[in-house]
């Protein structure tokens, strides 16, 4: 009889030993950690590129070509940056006519190309801007590192107009430069 009681107690203790940490974890407090007081911010010293009238199948570059705009890291954290483009739309009726942004920087009928070039980046040269977000700085395979607060990078843009398009229409597009904490 005594053996049975002892065995029962051992069994219960064993069960509790196995399950109690589990139960404790089940009831663990949800923790939310905001990493320090960090703030993310970047700025551009130029955001407009008024080209005026353009010809078909022609390249246009910002001036100066690759030191046209300066990106500055503000905030308090190191960042990785990205770039993405979009179709150019007719300002008067955006749904009625557009230039499609090509996925490799080339052009075609109603298809245009966009490129960027980072100052000092001799490895990549001009890089196509597409509708899929791509690396701006740093980039895979490059020797550069994330940008720290106060760091700056200069870059320029290149536009390759469609081989032909409807004339007399004011077109507009937007290139988004984005950042995430590294």
């Amino acid at each position: 009889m005594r053996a049975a009681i002892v065995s029962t107690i051992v069994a219960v203790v064993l069960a509790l030993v196995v399950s109690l940490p589990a139960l404790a974890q089940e009831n663990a407090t949800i923790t939310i950690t905001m990493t320090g007081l960090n703030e993310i911010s970047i700025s551009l010293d130029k955001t407009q590129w008024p080209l005026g009238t353009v010809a078909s199948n022609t390249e246009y570059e910002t001036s100066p070509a690759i030191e046209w705009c300066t990106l500055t890291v503000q905030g308090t954290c190191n960042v990785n940056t990205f770039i993405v483009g979009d179709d150019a739309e007719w300002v008067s009726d955006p749904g009625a006519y557009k230039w499609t942004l090509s996925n490799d920087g080339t052009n075609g009928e109603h298809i245009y190309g966009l490129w960027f070039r980072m100052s000092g980046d001799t490895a990549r040269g001009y890089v196509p801007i597409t509708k899929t977000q791509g690396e701006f700085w740093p980039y895979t395979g490059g020797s550069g590192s994330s940008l720290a607060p106060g760091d700056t990078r200069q870059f320029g843009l290149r536009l390759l107009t469609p081989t032909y398009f409807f004339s007399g229409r004011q077109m507009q597009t937007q290139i988004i430069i984005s950042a995430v904490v590294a």
Partner: protein
Amino acid sequence: MAGHIKSAGLIAAFLVIFLPIPALAEDVNFSVSPAEVHIDNLPPGEATQFELTIHNKDDLAHNFSVAIYSPPAEQIREGRTELPDGSWISLSFPRIEIGPSSQANLMVTVAIPQEQKWAGEDWETWLGVTAESGDVLGLKLYVRLLMSSSGIRSNAGFIAGIIAAIVLLGYVGYHYSRHRNKPY
């Protein structure tokens, strides 16, 4: 098709202008904090909240839009995977106008569905805050949201404990009954 132009040298016909609308052209200077949020031990079936602050540092009011984004694979933190469903995140507002030199707090709610398969996972998703502008160049700031769910190991341990208890009790009961029925 009257305005359809072939590429050969009709310079006068190339009347396309590639520039922002002057009324909308404006630089935007803003920040978002925190830049990274960790949520740990969130059990499936439960929800939690946190605040993001969008600070418009300009002298003009601006509109800001907020959305959930899948991070690029090469940017996801080690040991984590992409959040399976962006609908688990809800925002107190998807778009807001913030006055000059002012800030607004965005309440973000994170809820994991009550399914065992979502227990014990580590995910990453990004919240993107875009400053709306008519300029050729625009800015977007991402906040890294790193989430970990609790549960799977604990349930397995609990079940193992119960099974062990049943087996041991059964063993003890069997021997006890055999001992009682044994003829003297």
